[in-house]
């Protein structure tokens, strides 16, 4: 113990999953430099602040998906919850509700969906893939029914404060969206790394039976993870409404898989029990840098899809190789003794 403290680098390396986080961080830096040389505009301060704001929503849903993945489950409802949040908030605002009341109501609705996800998976023991597939469809249905099967009208001048708060405004030189993402990241990283709930979330992802036997409340921990996921998705929905100034029924379509990609690229294991939210920051950044950088490079959309797909596969492959490497090393040690 005392030796570890004496060597901070070794102590950092002892954190599970840090290896892949460091690898992809190097990857991110390389990508960033390459894109910068391809088109110098990429390095402009204007683009950097835009880029950070483009990464923020991906990071937010990435945090949610990471929480759920760490418990060993998956949340397919993220994109639909984004759409539901967008439509509920925008509909309320077009009907004259105070934007901040709309924000609160919207987030409560999203938390309710997260609660349902958590209980279906942990209490009713439905496979998470099926349970969240169901709620994904339900949430999209709510998005459609919110304004009677229409996209909403403009949320109007009265909601300008709301639009600035979530998207267009700046504080201390950076867009508010970035601050929102950073604040929520700090909060949820603290909960995951420093609280009992966080340890329980890791524990049930590593071995749910062992966790249960050692007194972890599996239902509570799983439900908390799903509620975090639904909450951040709700926030992204609000950001979407602020961005567009209207509610769109198909907002957030497919975002759940972007969230998986951000998590997985950042080293969060789809098998549960492992992952760092710092990795999710890197994963979301790689996603954002690719979207942004390939546009500046003038790459056709097909190339971008192929590149992103390859990066997702390679980062999971890396995870699998590293894990199996560890296993075989352990086996070697066992057989040697």
């Amino acid at each position: 113990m005392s030796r570890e403290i004496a060597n901070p680098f070794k102590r950092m390396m002892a954190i599970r999953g840090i290896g892949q986080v460091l690898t992809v961080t190097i990857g991110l830096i390389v990508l960033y430099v390459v894109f910068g040389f391809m088109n110098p505009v990429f390095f402009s301060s204007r683009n950097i602040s835009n880029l950070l704001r483009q990464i923020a929503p991906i990071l937010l849903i990435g945090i949610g998906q990471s929480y759920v993945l760490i418990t060993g489950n998956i949340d397919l409802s993220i994109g639909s919850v984004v759409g539901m949040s967008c439509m509920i908030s925008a509909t309320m605002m077009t009907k004259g509700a105070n934007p901040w009341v709309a924000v609160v109501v919207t987030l409560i609705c999203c938390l309710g969906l997260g609660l349902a996800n958590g209980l279906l998976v942990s209490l009713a023991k439905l496979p998470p893939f099926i349970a969240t597939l169901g709620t994904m469809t339900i949430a999209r249905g709510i998005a459609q029914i919110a304004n009677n099967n229409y996209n909403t009208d403009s949320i109007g001048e009265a909601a300008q404060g709301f639009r600035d708060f979530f998207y267009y405004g700046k504080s201390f030189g950076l867009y508010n969206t970035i601050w929102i993402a950073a604040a929520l990241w700090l909060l949820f990283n603290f909960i995951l790394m420093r609280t009992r709930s966080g340890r329980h979330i890791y524990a049930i992802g590593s071995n749910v039976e062992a966790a249960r036997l050692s007194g972890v409340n599996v239902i509570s921990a799983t439900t908390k993870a799903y509620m975090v996921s639904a909450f951040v998705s709700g926030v992204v929905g609000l950001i979407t409404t602020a961005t567009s100034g209207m509610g769109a029924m198909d907002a957030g379509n497919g975002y759940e898989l972007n969230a998986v990609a951000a998590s997985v690229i950042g080293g969060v294991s789809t098998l549960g029990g492992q992952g760092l939210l710092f990795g999710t920051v890197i994963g979301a950044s790689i996603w954002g840098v690719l979207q942004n950088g390939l546009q500046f490079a003038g790459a056709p959309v097909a190339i971008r899809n192929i590149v992103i797909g390859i990066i997702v596969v390679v980062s999971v492959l890396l995870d699998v190789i590293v894990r199996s490497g560890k296993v075989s090393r352990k086996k070697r040690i066992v057989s040697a003794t």
Partner: protein
Amino acid sequence: MKKIAIVLCVLVLATTLFAQGAKEDSGYKIFLITMDQSDQHWVNVDKGAEKAAAEIGGITYKWLAPDVKDDAKQIESINNAVAGGADAILLAANGLNAVTAALKEAESAGVKIVYVDSAANFPAVRTLATDNTAAGNTAGKEMLKALKANGITSGKIGIIGVSSATASTVARENGFRKAYEGTGFQLLETQYSNGDAAVAKDMSANFITQGVVALFGSNEGSTVGVGNAIAEAGRQIIGVGFDKSDMILSLIKGGHLLATMAQNPDVMGYEGMKTAVKALKGEDVGSEYFDTGVSVLTKANL
């Protein structure tokens, strides 16, 4: 248990069929089948068709549509219309080949098919639609006119599309590009937003960072994204888009978008209904293709 369920199903089906039969008028039975029910666009096609049906008189008219755009559901709607005794179907086909088998069955049952908005790879009485290439070209020319008026004769232009598989918006994009042949403008690689206004906003902001002088959006979501990005940048960038929604109109009124190309879905429905009735009466329906055109909406004519 299973048997009871089957019997019940048959009974329910039979009663609905009888119920429909009881309503039957002496005139024609005409169905409108669109891609979904949610889009304002389809509501306006329906209004046009209803108006024509009322003018002609004696027509049983019904709008059938899946809740969301889905090939299987559209096929189901076509089958339901045929089973419901349709004399003619006004169809907005989901894709070129997705529903052709169902249409073949409908035709062999003696149903006349008229395409509204979008056609399939199957011969029909007539197609009434926006000529998207021509409409995109109009958008390009409107933009060019505004650029020239501002004294801009060269620069980069960004395009936000929906996806490379959406035939209508790809045609708009092609028409738009054609308007710039031989000019000093450079049209950048199209970005595809899947119609997501938030994604389109990001892509437009990236284009603006690249220093574009104008932006084009090929559908509603893309156009909203273009307008919001221009509004935020606060620069003299010409934005032209497609479709008519409250948000797009408010962006035009705010001076952030120059113009939007509004289709005329009511004309599609209206003329489509008239065509179907003519065809059923055995009259000449005119040319095989009817361009329902676009209206250019600007701040001046709103």
